[in-house]
């Protein structure tokens, strides 16, 4: 991990400290949902529709019921009054949003292949699976529609009552000057249609839940693969009709999420209800095939892009018409993803004066689509970065030069979309990235390679994204169902040791140590003396969870503020112990002393004990030493940076090899560079995977053809390039630590960097655009079309 520029000297914050959870995880002592085994536990399995669109005419469960070991079989009609529909949590405003009913278990009609139509519970998971095969469902297949473009055509199969033409919403954003006016003045309009293909998040741990119900107390305890246990509890309370305070949701170790474990699904509601109905603990964990069909997908946009550009390559305006495929139902955050998180980012780090976006959300007979790592920002960045290269191509300019001419030099900056970018040296970071990657050198090598018939390409991606979506009044104004603050308790125990309770719910990002570093920094103690608790609604105050790169900026911000508040109280107590006036007490590390007399001090540990013995507290100071903070940031944070990819294309096979990959990111203050670099590297491969390998493919009748890791091409170590990661720190003024968020930057940046590189390699062959994923056979077809092979 390399820093180009550091905002501050590293004490605790800024150091690569090893993670706390690793000894457990590397020895197999993690506890994931599937590892939980309770006495008398039963196993659920789901009968899922093989049809993408069908009427359910009847279900015969008699054979299944007779299988020894089967405890119960339930159809949609059995469960209709007992499990409410799955709600949407982002009621997008001003968009004529239609939210059709999403029954947890389908009872009259199925709308995507994989939708749950019956539930089997048995003593053994093998028997449960046998019983699934024995349930006979009489379907009347209906015509299905898979592509958003087809779904809005007249005469297309209609998915929902009261949703004409399958249109879920129409959302518009007009920012700055009128596009047509800008285009007229600029003199030139470049057009391109681009597909941002459907992806499958593919966290290595499938989703699942275990539920236990105590009918004497009325308490339902659930272990769920969730990124946001409190949100799950709140939703489940509504869906199951159980008071929120009678539900305990625990996120144990969670094996990755990437957005797919944010939503509330039928799965957890069904498992909870089964435990109540049967009076025994119930477990259900998806198989991978079920995960691919029943867990949300991401992206799936068709974009028609127009750019107004002048003869010098200055981009004045952008107009985008987007069809966003929402799948069959609206998942928890789905309406906000291709709109708020997408449209507002369409001026990026560039001085664009006019942004004009129309998004139509479309229902189709496919798995619901929701937030997948980056959520909206990758789609926006992909458009802009492809646009920059297309402009360069059209005007015969270097792609770096086009970006240079258009880039905002530095922040703060108010974009035409209304966003106020916080801080950053955009142009400088861009130039530094070019230098580190030896951009000019590669241009020369590219020239030489072309003479030998070799195809080398260089791709740039300069991005800006928004994290820590806040403050709550802004989130609420867009229709988001909850505020987007975060909570923290910092509790100093009588012995001086510290426990932090955070409302975020890390699931692999490793913030336990990052949070300990923050507290250590604020309180002058060692990170080893700080324990971090999250993921259990019984011990942690309400919080919003981990997604949207919000955990460190918003969750960490809350923790820093809570630690500061505790320190202020400690100072008051220290003053009493030192028999000094509070304003004369100085704090250095974990020591409090009277100004000018540093040798006479009390330690935080002594203060902590005094806070609980409580006999020497100053007047008006309560016993105990802890603080609770609900922190609502004043604004978003905006990480940005430039990624550069160099690739070589095999002109015979179309295979792409990444020769070099440089990432330069400004995510503000980096709390733990080891963790941050891990996010950059892992995120880059996920974005590269979109560029080169991954696509969820349906056939025309709505069967998912890529329903396993054998057909859905997650890259292996063999495909993964070496990622060179560099950080440039400009603290964000929008939060107490100056951090911006690093969880999604690389996924956002890497996709267009690689696509641009591949198309740059093919530029002299008159190949302008190929839609992702750039699999060898697609590149081959393009080469063939141009007569190259």
């Amino acid at each position, binding site marked *: 991990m390399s820093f180009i520029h550091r905002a501050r000297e590293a004490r605790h914050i800024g150091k690569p400290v090893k993670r706390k959870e690793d000894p457990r995880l590397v020895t197999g002592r993690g506890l994931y949902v599937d590892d939980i085994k309770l006495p008398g536990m039963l196993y659920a399995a789901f009968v899922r529709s093989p049809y993408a669109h069908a009427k359910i005419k009847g279900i015969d469960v008699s054979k299944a019921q007779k299988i020894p070991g089967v405890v119960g079989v339930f159809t949609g009609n059995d469960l209709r009054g007992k499990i409410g529909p799955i709600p949407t949590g982002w009621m997008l405003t001003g968009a004529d949003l239609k939210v059709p009913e999403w029954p947890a278990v389908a009872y009259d009609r199925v709308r995507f292949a994989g939708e749950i139509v019956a539930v089997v519970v048995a003593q053994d998971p093998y028997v449960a699976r046998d019983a699934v095969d024995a349930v006979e469902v009489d379907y009347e297949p209906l015509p299905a529609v898979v592509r958003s473009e087809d779904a809005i055509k007249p005469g297309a199969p209609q998915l929902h009552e009261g949703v004409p033409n399958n249109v879920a919403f129409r959302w518009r954003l007009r920012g700055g000057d009128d596009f047509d006016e800008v285009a007229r003045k600029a003199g030139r309009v470049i057009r391109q249609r681009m597909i941002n293909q459907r992806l499958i998040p593919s966290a290595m741990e499938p989703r699942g839940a275990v539920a236990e119900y105590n009918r004497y107390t009325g308490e339902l305890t659930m272990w769920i693969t969730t990124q946001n246990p409190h949100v799950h509890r709140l939703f489940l309370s509504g869906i199951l009709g159980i008071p929120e305070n009678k539900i305990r949701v625990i996120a144990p170790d969670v094996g990755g999420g990437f957005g797919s474990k944010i939503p509330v699904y039928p799965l957890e509601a069904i498992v909870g209800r089964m435990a109540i109905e049967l009076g025994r603990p119930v477990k259900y964990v998806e198989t991978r095939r079920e995960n691919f069909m029943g867990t949300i997908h991401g992206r799936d946009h068709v974009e028609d892009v127009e750019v107004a550009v002048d003869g010098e390559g200055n981009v004045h305006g952008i107009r985008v018409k987007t069809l966003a495929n929402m799948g069959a139902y609206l998942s928890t955050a789905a309406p906000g993803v291709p709109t708020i998180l997408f449209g507002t980012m369409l001026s990026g780090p560039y001085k664009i004066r006019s942004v004009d976006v129309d998004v139509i959300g479309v229902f189709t007979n496919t798995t619901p689509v929701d937030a997948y790592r980056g959520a909206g920002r990758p789609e926006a960045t992909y458009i802009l970065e492809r646009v920059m290269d297309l402009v360069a191509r059209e005007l015969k300019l270097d792609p770096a030069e086009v970006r240079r001419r258009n880039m905002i030099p530095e922040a703060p900056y108010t974009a035409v979309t209304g966003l106020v970018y916080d801080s950053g040296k955009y142009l400088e970071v861009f130039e530094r990235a070019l230098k580190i990657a030896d951009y000019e050198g590669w241009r020369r090598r590219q020239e030489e390679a072309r003479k030998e018939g070799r195809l080398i390409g260089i791709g740039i991606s300069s991005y800006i994204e928004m994290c820590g979506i806040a403050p709550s009044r802004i989130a609420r104004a867009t229709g988001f169902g909850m505020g987007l603050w975060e909570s923290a308790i910092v509790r100093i125990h009588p012995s001086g040791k510290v426990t932090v309770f955070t409302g975020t719910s890390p699931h692999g990002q490793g913030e336990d140590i990052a949070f300990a570093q923050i507290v250590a920094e604020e309180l002058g103690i060692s990170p080893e003396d700080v324990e971090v608790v999250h993921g259990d609604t019984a011990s942690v105050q309400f919080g919003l969870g981990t997604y949207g790169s919000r955990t460190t900026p918003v969750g960490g911000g809350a923790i820093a503020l809570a630690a500061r508040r505790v320190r202020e109280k400690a100072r008051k107590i220290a003053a009493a112990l030192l028999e000094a006036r509070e304003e004369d007490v100085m704090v250095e590390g974990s020591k409090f002393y009277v100004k000018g007399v540093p040798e006479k001090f009390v330690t935080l540990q002594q203060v902590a004990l005094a806070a609980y013995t409580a006999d020497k507290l100053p007047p008006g100071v309560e016993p105990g030493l802890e603080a609770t903070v609900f922190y609502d940031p004043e604004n978003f944070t905006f990480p940005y940076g430039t990624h550069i990819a160099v690739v070589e294309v095999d002109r015979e096979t179309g295979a792409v090899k990444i020769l070099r990959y440089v990432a330069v990111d400004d995510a503000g203050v980096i709390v733990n560079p080891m963790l941050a670099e891990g996010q950059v590297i892992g995120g880059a491969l996920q974005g590269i995977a979109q560029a080169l390998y991954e696509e969820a493919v349906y056939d025309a009748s709505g069967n998912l053809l*890529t329903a396993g890791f054998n057909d859905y091409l997650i890259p292996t170590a*063999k495909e993964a390039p070496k990622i060179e990661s560099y950080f440039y720190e400009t603290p964000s003024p929008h939060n107490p630590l100056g951090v911006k968020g690093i969880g999604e930057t690389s996924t956002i940046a890497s996709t267009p960097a690689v696509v641009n590189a591949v198309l740059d390699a093919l530029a002299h062959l008159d190949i302008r655009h190929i839609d992702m994923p750039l699999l060898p056979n697609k590149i081959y077809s393009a080469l063939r079309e141009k007569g190259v092979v």
Partner: protein
Amino acid sequence: MYPPRFSLIVPSTLDEALEILSKYGENAKVLAGGHSLIPLMKLRLASPKYIVYIGKLQGLSYIREEAGRIHIGALTTHATIESSDLLAKRNPLLSETASRIGDLQVRNMGTIGGSLAHADPAADYPAAMMALNAEIVAKSIRGERVIKASDFFKGPFTTALRSDELLVEVRIPALNGFFGTAYEKLVFRAMDFAIVGVAAMLEIDKTGTIVKAGVGLTGVGSTAVRAKGVEEELIGKPASIDTIVKASARASENLNPPSDIRASSEYRRAMAVVMTRRALSRALEAAKARMKGQG
């Protein structure tokens, strides 16, 4: 992920195994390393009533040379074939092919007999079987049958094996003279089945003339095929890149590869030519190196 129920039969000798097969026939499936059958059962795409587990049978895992041929027991794992010293010297085509199957764990368990009997049209071994003109030995209580590779693969997941027969051995030539071999496998991602795989074997003589050639292709149709046109074009010709380029062009003759979500038929046809050329080029280099080393 949860296979269907079956009854298990574990014979302790080969004769017992053959008896069981003759008794249960179509109702029984033979299980060895499990890497072809178990994945199908986990997805419930196969539900045999009986499974005959031969994995522990003695004397079916070996690689030995007999009278100019290398005999490989059906239970020999891909990993054993990959690391065999005998094959490295006498027929590296098979060990290279084995090294490209699946991944490390799959190669540790999967067996050559199981893989061939499964007959996936994109599996790796069949290409080498074709290139090497291999023989596959099947046994039943009725006796032993030696089946030529070209007669063995009948279609996707279909072979010449009868329901009472057990594949017990594979025989390939021990290569002599100035030979060279190569297996070129085109995948879009490591560990996958081949988009196109080409196994090539060449032998040249002192004058630099190609005297023997074998080329087998996988992934290009319902079974692996032998590229007869390519072989014809090579034999008797000077061992040069020109010869190889010209011969490779015939690799797509009579091919009608499948189109699927990964690659079009057209792409596979084109890649058959490219991969054949690459395999032959590498085989030629190896043959020349052998000549240089010995001459």
